[in-house]
């Protein structure tokens, strides 16, 4: 292996690609060549570093200097100053939010400092297309250990003792699930069994699975092979959603490489164990993330959930015992095998061990992916790692668990986040999507958004889920349009109960959650919409009132000229007035007033 004096890591995650990182990479290749540095300095394109909105991101090691928003024009300076003369290019470095001083090492940034990266251990550090780099970071050592030194029962025992629980939503103990699947069909080695990786990542706003598939694909292959050995399976499937073409391409490439290295296929590492993998691409149905629907989809059918039991562990793919785990769950496996169950179970809380990756997005300063020990408070995640709410706005709520979850408010900020505490707070862990909302977000509108989502994605098999959610959506839409009526909230609660109790799968059962949780925490907002025909956050268009503050209006008349429906009248140099009957709430006048005299209420 060549020795380099420095490494330049360019983030090649989906976020940075869309911010233009490939042009930056091209420029680096050119500049390094031009200065004859190509044998001294290694250029590596990595998976998502996590802080996507700072992209394109370039990190220079050994120091770990973090350059953000790098453009091709900045490259020459970074090469000349930093790589040749050892002088950092301060103007492109990340700055400490409070002191404004450049942060020398990314390891000191608030965003990274508080993280414990297990599932994301390699993401953003290695070139995902290089199996050698994965191996250099202990990759496939866990598989070797398992195949050479452990019985399947011992593997299962380690996973059970680690306390690892499913990261796909329900939090079911992983070791137990492996044990059920192993024992299904009488632990007869000849019973056909399957291992499936759920990479459907349906929660809109969560992208941790994507980042693992793209940034560290071999960790999933290795973990699935370990699982296959433990349960006695010979074939595996990775079900990836169609919206992630890069993840599919990286996974394909990694599978081919693993086969080439004898880490997949017949007689792996000469141990007599055989296992192979196939990728199946989804086709845009959220419900396919539900395990029985996912199985139907791999079988080539409509992705409709079915009744459980029987659970996939006993009757899954083609009626055979099937182990299905989420991407992040799998990503933890090799580390647990190498470092041991005790090491893992020391991290986290009493009932939730290890770490969890959260995708923080919405109204937050640093959006992105963070991995923190279970039990970290919401306050720490949002205000320390995420840097708080932008533009000096106030925190209002955070949604966890996606369309199946609920919102957490101010009073939950200091609760240690784990499976149990989120449930107690009326939400759920879900896949780890964390959407932050500020005072400008209307909670009724958010509830309506989630219901529109679930109603749209309902597979239609159950009447309560199909018709009930539609009815709830109609009511919510009416409320946001200012046509809410007395008794609406009670009807919503009634419907919620029926849908939750009589739907077949988790989609229907949890569809009312966002409504119930906002009703519990923000009932006054609903009431303002219904009784006062007012949207306190100023979001619901139909309820907006554009008004001119007479004291601030200089009577210039600019607003009257832009109004497309002639709703504004007045005489020059005197306060103008908006006729609410005529105003179509287009908002054009708002930005036109040079004196800020127009407000939305």
């Amino acid at each position: 292996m060549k020795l380099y004096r420095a490494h330049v890591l360019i983030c090649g995650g989906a976020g940075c690609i869309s911010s233009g990182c490939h042009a930056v990479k091209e420029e680096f290749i050119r500049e390094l060549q031009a200065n004859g540095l190509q044998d001294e300095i290694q250029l590596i394109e990595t998976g998502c570093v996590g802080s996507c909105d700072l992209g394109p991101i370039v990190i220079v090691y050994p120091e770990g200097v973090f350059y953000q928003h790098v453009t091709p024009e900045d490259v020459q300076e970074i090469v000349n100053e930093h790589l040749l003369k050892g002088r950092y290019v301060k103007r492109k470095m990340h700055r400490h939010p409070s002191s404004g001083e450049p942060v020398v090492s990314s390891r000191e940034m608030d965003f990274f400092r508080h993280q414990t990266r297990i599932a994301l251990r390699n993401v953003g550090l290695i070139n995902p297309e290089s199996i050698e780099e994965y191996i250099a970071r202990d990759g496939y050592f866990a598989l070797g250990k398992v195949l050479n030194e452990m019985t399947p029962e011992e593997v299962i025992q380690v996973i059970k003792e680690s306390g690892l629980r499913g990261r796909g939503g329900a939090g079911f103990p992983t070791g137990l699930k492996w044990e059920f699947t192993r024992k299904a069909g009488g632990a007869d080695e000849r019973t056909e069994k399957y291992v499936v990786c759920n990479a459907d990542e349906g929660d809109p706003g969560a992208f941790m699975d994507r980042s693992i598939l793209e940034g560290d694909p071999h960790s999933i292959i290795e973990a699935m092979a370990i699982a296959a050995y433990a349960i006695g399976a010979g074939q595996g499937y990775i079900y990836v959603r169609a919206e992630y073409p890069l993840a599919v391409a990286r996974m394909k490439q990694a599978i081919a490489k693993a086969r080439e290295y004898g880490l997949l296929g017949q007689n792996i590492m000469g141990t007599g164990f055989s296992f192979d993998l196939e990728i199946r691409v989804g086709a845009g149905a959220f419900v396919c993330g539900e395990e029985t629907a996912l199985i139907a989809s791999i079988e080539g059918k409509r992705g409709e959930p079915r009744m459980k039991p029987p659970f996939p562990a006993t009757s899954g793919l083609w009626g055979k015992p099937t182990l299905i785990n989420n991407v992040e769950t799998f990503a933890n496996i090799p580390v647990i095998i190498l470092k041991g169950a005790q090491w893992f179970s020391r991290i986290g809380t009493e009932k939730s061990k290890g770490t969890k990756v959260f995708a923080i997005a919405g109204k937050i300063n640093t959006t992105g992916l963070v991995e923190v020990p279970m039990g970290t408070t919401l306050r720490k995640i949002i205000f320390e790692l995420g840097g708080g709410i932008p533009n000096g706005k106030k925190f209002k709520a955070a949604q966890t668990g996606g369309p199946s979850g609920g919102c957490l408010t101010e009073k939950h900020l200091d609760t240690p986040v784990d499976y149990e505490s989120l449930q107690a707070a009326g939400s759920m862990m879900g896949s780890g999507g964390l959407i932050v909302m500020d005072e400008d977000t209307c909670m009724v509108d958010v509830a309506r958004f989630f219901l529109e989502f679930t109603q749209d994605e309902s597979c239609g098999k159950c009447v309560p889920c199909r018709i009930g959610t539609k009815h709830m959506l109609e009511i919510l839409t009416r409320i946001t349009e200012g046509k809410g009526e007395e008794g609406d909230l009670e009807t919503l609660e009634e419907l919620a109960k029926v849908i939750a109790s009589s739907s077949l799968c988790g989609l229907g059962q949890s569809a009312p959650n966002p409504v119930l949780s906002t009703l519990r925490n923000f009932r006054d907002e609903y009431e303002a919409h219904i009784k006062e025909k007012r949207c306190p956050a100023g979001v619901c268009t139909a309820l907006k009132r554009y008004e001119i503050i007479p004291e601030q209006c200089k009577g210039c008349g600019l607003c009257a000229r832009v109004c497309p429906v002639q709703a504004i009248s007045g005489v020059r140099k005197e306060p103008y007035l908006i006729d609410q009957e005529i105003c179509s709430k287009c908002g054009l006048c708002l930005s036109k007033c040079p004196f800020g005299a127009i407000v939305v209420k």
Partner: protein
Amino acid sequence: MAASSCPASAHGCAEKYQKLDEILQEYKGVQGGLIPVLHQAQLLFGYLPHDVLVRIAEELDLPLSEIYGVSSFYSFFSLKPRGKYTVSVCMGTACYVKGAPALLEKIKETLQVEDGETTKDGLFTLDTTRCVGACGLAPVLTIGDDVYGRVTPDKVPEIFERYRQE
């Protein structure tokens, strides 16, 4: 753009059908091969014409009703011709709270189409999607394979102009 159903006999279609047959040969006997076949057929034809589904039914020995049942279940499959570029506005949660609805309105206005429709010149089909996994850059818009992050409504006309030039 001639939005035909691409019958097996039509000019320029024969080659595609030949490719389709190759794909079908590859997946014959593969368990659960229908969905991968539909994916590849859509890539080939741009959508799933009736004649193509008939051919798939014959070759995979499945009832045509099942093929229709499956292709209509998944939103990714289109039974209608589509524009040269699919425009997808992300309506995932992160994008929604960061202004995706206003963005969608602006695009509808710019392209003069509603959600699900194709522009008259056959260039763009407008769609909404649920999260493309670039949530850190919300609101997100994709046109063909290109991903645009942090798109504000005022940037919309300029973005589409680029594709019209090509």
